[in-house]
């Protein structure tokens, strides 16, 4: 069916709508993932207005209350509302997840493109370094970087925690982007750009980088999920986000395991929140890969 050409603001809206419908029809799982992500973002941004209770206020009158209409997900050992803490936790998870994935993927892309473009010795050294970093489980690397940097609060977020999560992501991004950029480098238009007098910088960032945007976007989404998982694990160990900031991993750590029998909701809901959000990012990342990168289509 030939698409009717529409113009103006209304046309844009119609086109966006068609695009959305196509995405839902072709990638139902990815669309479901996107829906969860959008809901999470809304919850995080509007946290202050949608929470039923203040997430850090201690209420000894309501300790370990079971889920009820007053407290939908129950309360913890300090009487704090679990639902409110989960909604605020979305804010922590999303901001740390997004920024570490963004920093890791963006820096990794810059290094990967440069590595592929220059080749030779520089490429070799960069590749050996990423090999070194990739021979460690990401959580081990993040823990070491975390202890190396200590913690540093900037605007309510632990900047060094973000960097610690970004480093393992960076090394993996370098690898993927380098492979993609190697093929782009051989394209005649890169040679033409150089012949026309473009600087190395211009050739790399205006002619090669735009052509590795597909793997970049795929990694960015997929790694947000990984980063959320990693942040939760670190916080669970007591080496990530610290109290009283509401964070999902933190809600599961420490004494919460003393309440297995009496207050299973304290364990159930934060874990579901982690799983659901990582699941959503993985689903969306998978569909994005199917749509954007035909080489990986299976």
């Amino acid at each position: 069916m030939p698409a009717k050409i529409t113009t103006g603001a209304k046309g844009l809206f119609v086109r966006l709508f068609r695009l959305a419908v196509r995405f839902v029809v072709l990638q139902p799982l990815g669309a479901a993932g996107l829906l969860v992500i959008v809901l999470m973002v809304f919850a995080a941004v509007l946290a202050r207005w949608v929470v039923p209770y203040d997430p850090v206020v201690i209420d000894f009158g309501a300790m370990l209350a079971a889920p009820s209409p007053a407290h939908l997900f129950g309360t913890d050992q300090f009487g704090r509302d679990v639902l409110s803490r989960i909604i605020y936790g979305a804010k922590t998870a999303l901001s740390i997840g997004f920024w570490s994935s963004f920093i890791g993927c963006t820096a990794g892309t810059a290094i990967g493109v440069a590595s592929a473009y220059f080749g030779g010795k520089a490429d070799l050294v960069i590749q050996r370094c990423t090999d070194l970093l990739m021979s460690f489980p990401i959580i081990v690397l993040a823990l070491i970087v975390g202890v190396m940097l200590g913690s540093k609060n900037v605007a309510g977020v632990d900047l060094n925690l973000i960097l610690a999560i970004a480093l393992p992501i960076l090394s993996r991004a370098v690898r993927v982007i380098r492979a993609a950029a190697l093929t782009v480098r051989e394209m005649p238009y890169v040679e033409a750009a150089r012949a026309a007098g473009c600087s190395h910088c211009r050739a790399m960032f205006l002619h090669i980088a735009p052509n590795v945007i597909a793997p970049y976007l795929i990694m960015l989404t997929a790694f947000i999920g990984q980063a959320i998982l990693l942040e939760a694990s670190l916080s669970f160990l007591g080496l990530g986000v610290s109290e009283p900031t509401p964070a999902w991993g933190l809600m599961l750590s420490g004494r919460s395991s003393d309440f297995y029998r009496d207050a299973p909701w304290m364990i159930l809901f934060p874990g579901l929140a982690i799983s659901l959000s990582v699941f959503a990012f993985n689903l969306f990342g998978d569909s994005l890969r199917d749509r954007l990168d035909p080489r990986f289509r299976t």
Partner: protein
Amino acid sequence: MTTYIIKRLLLMIPTLLGVATLIFFMLRVVPGDIVEVRLRGDSGSVSQEVIDRERERLGLNRPLPVQFADWIKGLVTLDLGVSMWTERPVTTEIGIRLGLSLQIAVMAAAIAVLIAIPLGTISAVFRDTWIDYVVRVITIGGLAVPSFWLGMIIILTLLVVFSWAPPVMYTSFYKDPIANMAQLIWPALAVGYRYAAVVARMVRSSLIEVMREDYIRTARAKGVFERVVVLRHAMGNALLPALTLIGLEFAFLMGGLVVTEQVFNLNGIGRLFVDAIARNDFILIQALVMLIAVMFIVINLIVDLMYGVLDPRIRYK
């Protein structure tokens, strides 16, 4: 083959040297050290003199090049030093815990392989049907569920359904195999789910790729049963990439154990690593990092050698 192995083993040296250097200097830029964690931890008011004396005793105030030379010399002679916290040799600290963690890792690997290969195959054979969708949701779920939370849910389920919790005290496999399994099967399941999911996804995609090959079409054209085509003709080639991933993920299992051992209150390598990090026990962290690096390299070598055995097209010279 022998020369190939020797060549690979020699290539380990520069890599390990790189890891050793990197970890040494990464840890030394930390502003705090173990003395501060230990002495400032409880009271808060310890005189500078006491701190200096403790640093002197642990050798922390020596110039960095001297400490570095010591570390490299220790690596060569396999003397990795003494834990700064417990004051026992790190090889002892690691030795008493390695068995436990390795056992969980091997059990998790067994669980993963047993689940992943059939699951991945079914998913590939019934590609784009509802069976495939169910399997894919299960496997993507495996990448999303944190293993430590899965462990907590397992404990919770055991408690609620059977009113039974896994024993807290560790029993050696040689003393009482049943009690040992009853305790360790749960953490193995918790970390095994993710492992199985990763491998199953790989089996699925590589089987789908192999099924497009010409020789598969030939086999079908001459009337071979579909079951035989999949199991005899395709599987062999499809499992090779999965093998790499099984090895790689095994080396990375330590990552899952770091958190999961905490949940099951097991005193393994993962627990040791978290404690060492929390206490800034540099000597112990260094030794554990080297252990992980050696394991990673050795497992990679084993996987490469198995490739040569399983795939006659690959020859190592």
